[in-house]
């Protein structure tokens, strides 16, 4: 019993002395500095670094592969299709306007070899449409030549009704199939 009470006393003394030992260290110290440092670290992490993709987007799409060049030329409106009336191959005024823009693009990119595809709607016969599509492609090519575009890098091919843009049987679809379509098919010397 005596021993037990002695231990209790010693524990109590130790606890009181610890209280007195801790108190003098609790003074205002350089704590705000630590907080500031933490904030700086957070800011640095959140700062976006410019990704490599952005650099690519501003580059010239026409120096890229041909697929990119074709998509870009049509999306940017630098190239466009021209449309024809049924069983006709003469160029309407709006077609000539469109071809003037296409010619501008071809002048700006003399390195491109172009393919002009002549297409027809499904209402004619398959065989006759092959010859009609040839007329459409070549009428388009001739007009570009009259605008001063050299014939050399331009090839004309007829697809007749074999590659329709749209497959419904209505005029809403047919007019889109009676067209001359432009494809950048290569680079000269490349």
């Amino acid at each position, binding site marked *: 019993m005596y021993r037990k009470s002695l231990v209790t006393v010693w524990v109590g003394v130790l606890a009181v002395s610890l209280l007195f030992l801790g108190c003098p260290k609790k003074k205002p110290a350089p704590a705000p500095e630590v907080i500031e440092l933490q904030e700086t670290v957070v800011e640095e992490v959140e700062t976006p670094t410019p990704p490599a993709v952005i650099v690519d987007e501003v580059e010239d799409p026409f120096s890229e592969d041909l697929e990119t060049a074709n998509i870009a030329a049509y999306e940017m409106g630098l190239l466009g299709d021209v449309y024809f009336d049924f*069983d006709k191959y003469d160029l309407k005024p709006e077609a000539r306007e469109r071809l003037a823009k296409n010619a501008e693009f071809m002048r700006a990119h003399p390195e491109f070899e172009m393919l002009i595809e002549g297409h027809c709607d*499904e209402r004619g016969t398959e*065989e*006759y449409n092959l*010859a009609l599509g*040839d007329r459409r492609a*070549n009428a388009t090519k*001739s007009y570009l030549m009259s605008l001063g575009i050299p014939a050399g890098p331009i090839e004309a091919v007829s697809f007749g009704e074999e590659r329709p843009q749209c497959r419904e049987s209505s005029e809403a679809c047919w007019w889109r199939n009676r067209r001359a379509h432009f494809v950048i098919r290569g680079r000269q010397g490349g």
Partner: protein
Amino acid sequence: MTRASKTTATILLTFCVLWSLPGAAWSQQGPPPEAQEQLSDPEVSVVLEGRQRSRFRLAMPALQVEGGLGPQVRSAAEQLEETLRTDLDRSGVFDVQGPMQLSVLTLTGSDDRDFELYRSLRNELLLRALVRQDQGRLILEGRVYDLASGKVVLGKRYRGDPAIARRIAHTFADEIILYFSGRQGLALTSIAFASDRSSFKEVYLMDSDGANQRPITAHKSISMSPEWNPNGRELAYVSYYSGSPSIYLVDLTSGRKTPVITTGSLNISPSFSPDGKQMAFARSIGNGNAEIFICNRDGSNLQQLTHSSGIDTNPAWSPNKREIAFTSSRTGSPQIYIMDAEGANLRRVTFEGNYNDGAAWSPDGTRIVYASRRTGSFDVAVADVVTLESRLLTNGGGSNETPSFSPDGHKILFTQKRTTRNGTTTQIFVMDATGGNRQQLTTQGNNSAPVWSGFKN
């Protein structure tokens, strides 16, 4: 009626030369039967006069089987029976009464009584076919009876591999058709066409009944417009596989492809001269002006036949080699013209309709069939090349185009484009040259430009 006494001749196989060529594409029906024998001399000759316009009513009860058949031979026998019945029915020569129609009869087993029963259903002829197996080979014995006299008028025995059951049936059908109509049957002929069923348009062949459809090209491009060399061993066709539409030949025995005309932006619509030595086709010159040219089969000796500012295309060489029909827009709309094979003596053939194209000659050279647009869509029309009288053979139901004659001139192939809920579909049909009795031959993908081979000799 013993078989031995009736057997008088063994027919030599006239097509054995073609048979010996390995892998012949057209002969995927198989080689000819190994043997065929005449079972009897006709004991009577059926009176044919005055019968050309009506059909013979022919009873064709179910195939008889002698002895047991292995499973392979049994299925070959079923195929044979079906093919034989279809060939005879479609020939236009017979009105076939099959087991269904004959099931009302209670047959006795005695010929005299049974023939009378067949006659009671207004049958004039009876075809009895018997099949048996001999050392893995299929043997067909067929006899055609004249029911009035009860005599056998045509008897044949064929022996061959069960794998060529369809070909055995076709051979027998053609014999029966020849005997009763005097004209060569079409059962062994083939049809070339183009189809996009593989998602690419390729050239295909099928048997004349629409069976056995198989691709001949695999360019994975656009391949179209097949035309038979009259020798039956090769096709000319158009393909885009080197970029622009060009003309090629495909040998149906070896499958080998040979370029014919590949220079220039457009070479289309080949048509062989009847001797197979030359080809007419349309070729673009200058600024996209299609003109009719001819050349030798190998592409040499190119000559321009037309010189007009309009489109000239789709030539068809006449069976007598002296003339070429073609389509020209020289007066504004596409119309059909005929010139002589040197390019002179041009005359216009079509005057009705604002769009006529795709002339194909009848084998006797007296008529052309073509696609004619008189209202909204095309119909098949036939015109007499002398009187220029024309009439329509189809009446709507879709756009009916690219007609061509069978080698006997009694049938016409054509395509019909229809708009369905799932978009447009183009299928190949065959009809009588008078416009009736229409049957559809294709169902897969879109199919175009069907052309019939000559007779397989």
